[in-house]
């Protein structure tokens, strides 16, 4: 059970992100929440690929021995790039929202809309 601490860290990251999404009213803070969930999931993927005492799956000047699983690392790479793309689009939308409404508070934006 002690070996499951990395997974618990993953769950904590995801929960903090969800907390920020549910309770925070500032758009930037909500985006930070999403980034936290993203990091949690990425950490989870990387964690899945670790084998005890393993080295990176690279043969160039490798000392030999068992290697970590390469596929989770590749998946994490993909998901990080996707995260960057989503983050860029969300931040640019927030810039525009701020231009239109002059605020980042969700409640005020909703009220102005009506």
């Amino acid at each position: 059970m002690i070996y499951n601490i990395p997974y618990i860290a993953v769950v904590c990251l995801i929960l903090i992100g969800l907390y920020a999404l549910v309770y925070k009213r500032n758009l930037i803070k909500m985006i930070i929440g999403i980034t936290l969930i993203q990091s949690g999931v990425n950490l989870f993927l990387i964690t899945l690929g670790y084998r005890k005492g393993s080295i990176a799956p690279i043969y160039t000047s490798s000392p030999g021995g068992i290697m970590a699983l390469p596929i989770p690392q590749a998946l994490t790479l993909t998901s990080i790039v996707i995260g960057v793309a989503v983050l860029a689009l969300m931040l640019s939308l927030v810039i525009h929202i701020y231009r239109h409404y002059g605020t980042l508070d969700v409640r005020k934006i909703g009220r102005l809309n009506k």
Partner: protein
Amino acid sequence: MSEMSKIVRTITSIAFPFAMIYGLYVIAHGHLTPGGGFQGGAIVASACVMILVAFGSKWTLDKIKEKRLSVFESIGAVAFIGLAFLGLIFGTVFFNNFLVGNEYLFGVIPTTGVANINTAGILPLMNFAVGLKVIAGLFAIVLVMAYATTNYKEGKK
């Protein structure tokens, strides 16, 4: 973003080539060492962003327009998908690594422990295509966002 002080600008000009070379190294050796097109592209793009931060968005936008970056990105993407199509033409399957096995161009089968750059088939080429794409793409995003926020602060709206 406006221009920063002269000290920052000078240091940036000195550091820029090193960051650039490091990024290109990571791209070129993607099939041998940790790294690859995405990682190296991100390093080069951050070097470019460093220039943007030091010299201001207006100066940078005078040097390079986001439209041109967008074209570069398209070229990188077309090169990438073109390599995939070449796999279809030469190797009968989409995304086939058709260069593995020939002795001249990136086709050598590597041995453990030795770093031979002439290996891995189309992987190095794909690394370069993706690298170009990532450099242009990330820099374009930051450039456009920086320019947009600058204009707003000056009250133009």
